[in-house]
């Protein structure tokens, strides 16, 4: 009987080892940092509006600088894993201009993706850079299209050859939609009121005209969803309160 038990135990261990070895993949070629920096900053590619499950239109570029603000070559930058998000490459050494570029494919759900790029300083302490990317769902995509058509002419400060911004012409400056500090103070119903009945409805600028007779209720909800999505800092809704254990 004892012998049987030993055989069973040995078989189990052997099977366990075989399974473990089968799942074990060859280690990735490790990158060795040849230098370290003291800060990591975003160069470009943050706060892009993308599609769920699709690659962002522009690469994400981050830069590692030393204490004097000069670019560091050969520092290791890793993009920390986040559910559904893929980076290509996920880790790389900074080039001669101190930069690392990666293409980002967002996860399959719409909303905000808070990514983290990490590097090490000379004392081994991790330097983190938080970058936000945004994936438009149906409602926010609709809001974005409405924004481009009706709102961006005043609320977007940037001009393009085909569309000149009206922002600088206005005596009272409109809030860009990403201006979370100002717009997060307004509730959804306040925003609905301003969009529907114009700025004077809440004692704000008369330069904001009423769009309630032009846009439908779903359109206005879509615009508010977009404003909440692109808001920086993000809106913290009072929402459900988590009970203390």
């Amino acid at each position: 009987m004892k012998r049987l038990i030993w055989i069973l135990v040995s078989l189990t261990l052997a099977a366990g080892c075989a399974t473990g070895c089968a799942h074990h993949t060859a280690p990735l070629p490790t990158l060795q940092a040849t230098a370290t920096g003291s800060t990591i900053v975003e160069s470009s590619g943050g706060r892009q509006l993308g599609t769920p499950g699709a690659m962002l239109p522009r690469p994400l570029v981050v830069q590692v600088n030393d204490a004097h603000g000069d670019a560091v070559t050969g520092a290791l930058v890793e993009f920390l894993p986040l559910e559904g998000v893929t980076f290509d490459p996920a880790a790389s050494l900074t080039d001669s201009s101190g930069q690392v570029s990666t293409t980002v494919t967002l996860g399959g759900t719409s909303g905000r993706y808070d990514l983290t790029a990490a590097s090490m300083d000379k004392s081994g302490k991790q330097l983190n850079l938080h970058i936000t990317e945004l994936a438009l769902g149906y409602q926010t995509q609709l809001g974005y299209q409405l924004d481009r058509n009706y709102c961006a002419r005043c609320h977007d400060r940037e001009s393009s050859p085909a569309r000149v911004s009206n922002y600088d012409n206005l005596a009272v400056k409109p809030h860009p939609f990403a201006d979370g500090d100002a717009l997060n103070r307004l509730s959804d119903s306040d925003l609905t009121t301003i969009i529907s009945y114009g700025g004077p409805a809440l004692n704000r600028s008369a330069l904001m005209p009423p769009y309630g007779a032009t846009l439908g209720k779903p359109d206005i909800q879509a615009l508010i969803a977009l404003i909440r999505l692109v808001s920086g800092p993000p809106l913290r809704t009072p929402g459900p309160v988590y009970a203390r254990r």
Partner: protein
Amino acid sequence: MLTRFVSSWRAFFRDPILPFGVVSFFLLIALSIVPAKDRFSEWRRYQQQYLRLIHNRGDAVALQRHFQGGIRQIWLPELAVADRCQTCHAGLAEASLVHAGTQPFRGHPVIPHRLDEFGCVICHRGQGAATTVAEAHYSPLAPEEPLLPARYLEASCGQCHHVALPGTPKLNEGRDLLARYGCLRCHTVRLPDGSRMTATDNPQPLNHIAAKTTREWIYAWLQSPSAYSASATMPDYQMSEEDARDISAFLIADSEPLPGSPLPTPTTSKSAPDIAAGAKLYRESFCASCHAIRDAAGNLAGGDPGPQLSPTLSQEPGPELTRIGSKVKPAWLQAWFEDPRTYNSHTLMPRYRWTPQQLKILSAYVASRTDLELLAHVHLEPATAQQIANGKALVIEYGCAACHEIRGISRPEAYAPELSRVGSKPFAQLVFIAGMEKTLPAYLNGKIRHPQAFGPGLRMPQYNFTSGQADALTTALLSLTDRSFTLPSRLQIPAQPGTTYQPAGHAGKLMAELNCLACHRINGRGGDMAPDLSSEGSAVQHNWLDAFLKNPYTLRPTLIQHMPNFNLSGAERAELTGYFMTVYQNPDIDRDAMPITGYSPSLVEQGRQLFYSKYACQSCHVVNRQQDKASIGPALNGIGSRLNAEWIYRWLKNPQALRPGTIDPNQNVSDADASALTAFLMAQKDSGVREAKQ
């Protein structure tokens, strides 16, 4: 008998009770498998996780009340839907969970449809009736319907919505690319309502190509269209030198002379043509509205505004002119500028009324846009009869006549597979190449980007699509499903049928020459680069329109002007103006209902105050150029000489009723305010326009 059985039982088992117990035990085990499988099922584990997730939330009571255990199913027999997805995705209908928690417990983002009316698989595909994750999402037993990747999700909207939706830009772009890049000239796409998707590109006829260009250019172009023009819509057939040689020989030999008088020989004046004057005329004629030229830095200037700026551009822009001098013959260029329809009766190029001197300097300038490197290494021997015969066979084999009109060769029928249901193409019919994901979306995307990788014998040429364009095209193709044909017809929203509207009479002929419909839309037909003119006769004053046609200008202060000056004669302008004022009227508007002048100063002043205070119109419009700053709406200085008072009044009451989609909001202006604002605006006269008599 019984005794024998009992004795053999005892002999075998010795104890009569023990075997009964053993058999009963195993029977019990066997019977408990089914309830145990149910008890420890995957979906039950997810439901327990969900209950733990919501347990500590502030809205736990509401969420727990909404929660229903067990298998949950949406059953819609009419749509052939039996979806059990909500069994695991327990929080799908909870708005408070849209941004909370992780999958599979997130609430569904807001969409215009109810879950219980459409189910899940109509949009997301997958196996709705399955109750395990693997079976539901990517069943190896049913590979026909794996879950649709999120990046192509807009394809599902396209199963019912055959019109462009504002919330589906990728689908809209894909459909636009299908129509603009010639896909529909080889592939047939039938829609559920029986109509066909139609191409909107405008490929050149090749009947008279020898008059236009040289065999050497055709040879170089066939080998690599992108080498001549990076923005070329003609795909790359990766043609061998021999094939390009023989096809170019055939096309030149097959070409017949242009009808009518022979092309004029370009005058060889002793003085060099004035290139600078030609460049000035090129600018003043707004050629860049349609044609792009690549500058020294390699950037395209002018031409196609791109899908970002014009997602529904319905017309193909003009070809890039960076190296046009290396392509066309000078005599042809001059004749083309004089009357483009002589060469191509379907061209979008308007017939400008240029003088002989202008024709000369403009063609000299355009012909100066050459690239000496392009044809420097092309040396072709005279064509032989065998090469010409082989060229004809190759033209048929490559299917050139699917797009181009070629003398003696009819358009091939069913040249490429029909794509009406390609979004449901059976898995067994897909041929994958090594290393690619084995799914239909990956197959379609790969085929669009690298068709030749799927086999050297395939006829599909190589396009230079960006990854975004390939995704958009894949989305459009994935929308062409079997399901779109089987869904109830009440759910189908058909594409708006195109009209064949053509202005009538002599003025209509003039408008066809000027090709007004290339940029303007009238009565449902035409481009969208410029304003819709269907109600222009109700909107504008006669004298302003006549002056505008004489010297067009942009009405918006910061808009790049596109409207060219066609150098119309006085009689032509009078004909066009009269036609517009008579024919293009809004039946609901009596343009003479309100006077053009004669408003009381007090009413004008009241309107001025309303304009600047209550309605703050100055945030978008300029009235006083010294004082106002705005860059959105049309400038309103001189509007009293441009528009009719009744149009302004009706516009103020409801702008969208007159021009759907206009950015100007409906401000619910009262009748009294609208009258005062109309009086103020009508008082803004333009001294340059002669006042109409009342």
